[in-house]
């Protein structure tokens, strides 16, 4: 056997730069957060990025690390782009699946009068705001026209339990048709849980429902946020949670907060309430500019800076709770961490590019109109029907050709949007055209003044700082959130979607 001369095995000088983006760390502008095309990331000194781009970086260990993370390619005779392509394809896998989250607004009736209500609501006697059997039947037909192998059927309102007949009929129709469709179906009910009966619970148990409710914090805060004439919303919610847990198991019942101005003063108390009630997941959800929340904004609203201050305090407290031995996960952080620490796509509608609006999510309103997101439906309830895709008696192809979806497509790819296209977080983030339209009057959005961007950057910066500077125990907690999320629909793998 003859060997090539030693020179043939010497590493080539030089390298080829691969696509990358970077952002100075807000807390140390001599360092940058850099991402590859597929979202691999690294912290580097700013001057090293200069050397890297100039082609003069020579440190062997840095070159090896950057090559492994797909920031550069060295020997083109042996380098393959296959791992990078695979990673990118994995992160964008939701593109292939079609809508997997289907929201059925079975009724607008509700017994609450929440000032921050982001949905249109009607009093409990107004049954003309219930979904008709024919609309429900057509909506299920449209649902199965989605090619996604995994489908989440989520019932919302108003209060969906006030029209349980529709919940039952739709569920049974889906199950019957799925006998020959063979999809993986998950049923979710978003409800106050105030009207749960044993019959409801038996039905939910038979179909392995997930129950999602709102718990805004301690009793005084929750009742102040969610008034009922009887002033006992908290007691009824807790009773519903307990009954749901007894019938379906603890993991089948989840809760999330809606944060009002009152809530911002109580980050630790809200977290402690979730611990006290035995939850292992909390979602700290800020107000959005829809419905009654927009009308009462002067009284109940706050800026994104206030939200981020609240979130940092709550986040620190959640980490402390975990260090003390109680597992508690923050849902939105878990989504962002799965982006930072895994190549898998969760497909969350607001955190994907192309956007999930209409492509990952479809909303069937009680009256048969169809929307790409629940926020688009809320805008219609406020009088702006520009985001309506069509009706349940029209084909999906007609929906995709609608002016609404043309707007979504034109403004729904973050990599093409001014301000997003060169952002280091764009491989991990998403476009939200409906939110930008609602806040700024422009679906493409103005990133320098975008609340969505400010929130995302604030959260990403917080998590990155924690990952690189935090206590090892805290990092372990965050890694667990990323790869073993508590909420089942956050599990990595095939594009799984949660309701926004």
């Amino acid at each position, binding site marked *: 056997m003859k060997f090539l001369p030693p020179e043939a095995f010497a590493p080539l000088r030089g390298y080829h*730069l691969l*696509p990358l983006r*970077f952002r100075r760390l807000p807390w140390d502008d001599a360092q940058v957060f850099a991402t590859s*095309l597929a979202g691999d990331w690294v912290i580097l000194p700013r001057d090293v990025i200069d050397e890297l*781009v100039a082609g003069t970086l020579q440190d062997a260990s840095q070159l090896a690390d950057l090559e492994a993370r797909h920031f550069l390619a060295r020997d083109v005779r042996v380098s393959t782009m296959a791992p990078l392509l695979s990673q*990118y394809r994995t992160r964008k896998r939701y593109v*292939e699946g079609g809508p997997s989250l289907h929201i059925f607004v079975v009724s607008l009736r509700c017994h609450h009068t929440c000032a921050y209500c982001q949905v249109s609501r009607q009093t409990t006697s107004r049954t003309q705001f219930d979904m008709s059997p024919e609309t429900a039947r057509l909506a299920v037909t449209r649902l199965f026209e989605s090619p996604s192998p995994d489908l989440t059927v989520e019932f919302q309102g108003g209060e969906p339990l006030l029209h349980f007949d529709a919940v039952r009929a739709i569920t049974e129709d889906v199950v019957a048709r799925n006998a020959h469709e063979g999809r993986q179906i998950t049923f979710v009910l978003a409800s106050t849980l105030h009207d749960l009966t044993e019959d409801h619970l038996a039905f939910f148990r038979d179909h392995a429902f997930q129950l999602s409710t709102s718990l805004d914090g301690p009793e005084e805060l929750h009742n102040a946020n969610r008034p009922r004439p009887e002033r006992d919303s908290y007691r009824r919610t807790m009773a519903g949670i307990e009954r749901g847990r007894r019938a379906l198991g603890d993991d089948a019942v989840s809760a999330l907060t809606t944060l009002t101005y009152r809530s911002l003063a109580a980050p630790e108390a809200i977290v402690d309430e979730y611990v006290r009630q035995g939850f292992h997941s909390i979602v700290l959800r800020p107000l959005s500019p829809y419905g009654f929340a927009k009308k009462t904004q002067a009284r109940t609203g706050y800026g994104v800076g206030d939200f981020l201050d609240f979130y940092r305090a709550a986040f620190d407290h959640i980490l402390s709770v975990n260090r003390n031995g109680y597992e508690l996960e923050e849902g939105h952080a878990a989504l962002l961490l799965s982006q930072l620490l895994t190549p898998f796509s969760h497909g969350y509608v607001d955190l994907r590019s192309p956007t999930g609006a209409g492509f990952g999510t479809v909303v069937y309103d009680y009256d048969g109109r169809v929307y790409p997101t629940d926020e688009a439906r809320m805008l219609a309830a406020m009088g702006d029907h520009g985001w309506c895709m069509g009706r349940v008696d029209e084909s999906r192809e007609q929906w995709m050709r609608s002016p609404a979806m043309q707007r979504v497509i034109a403004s729904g790819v973050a990599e093409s949007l001014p301000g997003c296209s060169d952002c280091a977080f764009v491989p991990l983030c998403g476009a939200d055209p409906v939110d930008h339209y609602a806040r700024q009057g422009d679906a493409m959005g103005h990133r*320098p003044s975008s609340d969505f961007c400010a929130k995302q950057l604030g959260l990403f910066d917080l998590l990155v700082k924690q990952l690189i500077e935090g206590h090892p125990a805290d990092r372990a907690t965050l890694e667990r959130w990323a790869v073993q999320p508590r909420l089942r629909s956050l599990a990595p793998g095939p594009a799984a979607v949660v309701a926004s």
Partner: protein
Amino acid sequence: MCAPHYLRANTVGGDLRLDIQISIDPDLFSADVVTRTSHRYTGEFAVDVRRDSTRYVVVLRPLLGRTLPPDIEGRFRNDLLDDRLRERIQVQTQTLHDVLARAALNESLRLAVP
């Protein structure tokens, strides 16, 4: 790189406000870089970008209710340098970026063809 800036006082709607003018060497920074960097500041400032034969001049005037941060010139200069580096990255990698994205998503594109 940047000629010394100067602050200018002006009255807007009866309010006395300061703005800052930053001079930029056109031999070091392209028009695209100057405008991209300036755009980043349009959330906090009213931005005016001018060009004469020797330089760009970027004027930043704080929007209503805001004040001129003390480190604004340093921030802007850092962002100019970063955007110039991004321009160089794009020149080197844009074609490859498009090829890689298309190759990665090729299967999805085939699914879309009727």
